[in-house]
């Protein structure tokens, strides 16, 4: 292994690392908010909302992430509002991931006994209040492991940003590679950068899962 690649191009790697972390964090927040909203739609007492939620989840889950990113990259520009690769990629990631997060949150909500909703409603809370104050806070604890897994996926999936010149780790790795011509070593170091992010998260998810198992 040629460590001079890592030391010579450390700044380039680091710039990509920053792009990957930033995109993943933004997409995490976006996909969580969007996912929670869609999850509530999915179980809402209004039929139109349920249809919308189901349609959204079914459609997005069944098309490739790259296609979602392309839609946000080329679509707005056709309307005269071009989004750059980083922005389009991050929005695409958030939308794609939100469909999985919606399903995880929905499963979490359904795991909370129905009696609680009924009790809250009969004590005078509205449906939205019941969701926000009673059901969601409990559901969140259950869905932390699947959410953690989705975050790990998100970090890994952010690598598609390279295809739309999204200034992420893979993008800068390609640039290092076209200068070093040492593909094996160049991308081995890229793998290390990804593992620095994903391995601790995986470990955290496992620990939390075990804690939940013990409690229930």
């Amino acid at each position: 292994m040629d460590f001079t690649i890592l030391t010579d191009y450390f700044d380039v790697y680091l710039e990509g690392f920053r792009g990957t972390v930033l995109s993943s964090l933004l997409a995490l927040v976006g996909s969580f908010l969007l996912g929670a909203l869609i999850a509530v739609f999915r179980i809402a007492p209004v039929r139109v909302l349920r249809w919308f939620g189901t349609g959204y989840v079914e459609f997005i889950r069944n098309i490739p992430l790259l296609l979602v990113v392309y839609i946000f990259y080329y679509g707005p520009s056709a309307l005269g509002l071009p989004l750059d690769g980083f922005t389009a990629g991050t929005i695409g990631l958030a939308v794609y991931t939100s469909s999985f997060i919606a399903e995880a949150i929905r499963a979490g909500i359904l795991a909370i006994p129905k009696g609680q909703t009924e009790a809250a409603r009969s004590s005078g809370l509205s449906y939205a209040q019941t969701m926000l104050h009673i059901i969601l806070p409990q559901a969140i604890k259950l869905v932390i492991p699947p959410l953690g897994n989705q975050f790990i996926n998100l970090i890994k999936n952010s690598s598609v940003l390279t295809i739309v010149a999204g200034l992420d780790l893979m993008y800068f790795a390609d640039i290092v590679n076209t200068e070093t011509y040492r593909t094996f070593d160049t991308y081995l170091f890229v793998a290390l950068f990804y593992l620095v992010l994903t391995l601790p998260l995986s470990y955290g998810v496992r620990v939390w899962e075990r804690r939940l198992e013990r409690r229930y």
Partner: protein
Amino acid sequence: MKKRWRLISIAAVCALAVLAGCANNGTGGNTAGEGGNAAPAAGESGAGALGKIKDRGKLVVGVKYDTKLFGLKDPASGNVEGFDIDISKAIAKHIFGDEKALELKEVTSKTRIPMLNNGEIDMIVATMTITEERKKEVDFSDVYFQAGQSLLVKKGSPITGIESLTADSTVLGSKGSTSVKNIREKVEGIKVLEFDNYQDAFNALKAGQGDTLTTDDAILYGMAAQDPNFEVVGKPFTDEPYGIAVQKGNGDIVQAVNDTLKELHDSGEYDKIYEKWIGKKPGE
């Protein structure tokens, strides 16, 4: 339950058959690889790298599939066409006496050197500029096309040449091309976005992702021919002599390529190919 398992096992057998097919393809590549790797010791076998190609019965050339005028895949016919393709055919004809003894593989600026060094292709005929840096990785033939770097913009753009570019401009290019390096040197602090291939870079320019796209003028003229909303502006600001690249140490292949180029020039065939694609005679 039993029926399902039978189905699964049938599917498994099919997949393995497919994979066996793939493995064969892989082996094809390997043979070429051994040919390449064995080249420095060519004296022993007497066959050399060129001999291996002859034994195989066809020449495998890496060309662009996304570059109009040089190498472009036509969805309607499935054929790849362009200047680089005609040159490749001439080399195949020189070696085998048959221009059909040729297999084309898609390369991009990013993938062509790895694919050559892996032995998957015998040579690169893909709008590749001869540079000192690349000479450390591969061996080049004589110059077979003289290009120069230029700029492509949307018609009506305020950019009229390289002197219009500032640190605030965004330039689009292709990963691994000399042109992105040049533009960074010529315009300090300029923002450059690099794509996997020219197709994506041109799509990005159309999508308004940058102010201009830079690469060799010959490629840019092809893009302008594809979409009349775009035009090439300013004079070429670099020399980009294209060469045909082979694995290091494959001197016998370089010789065959140079002989082919000489034949083409002597017979006037080169000028014909040039005019067919570029629309004028060389040097005009």
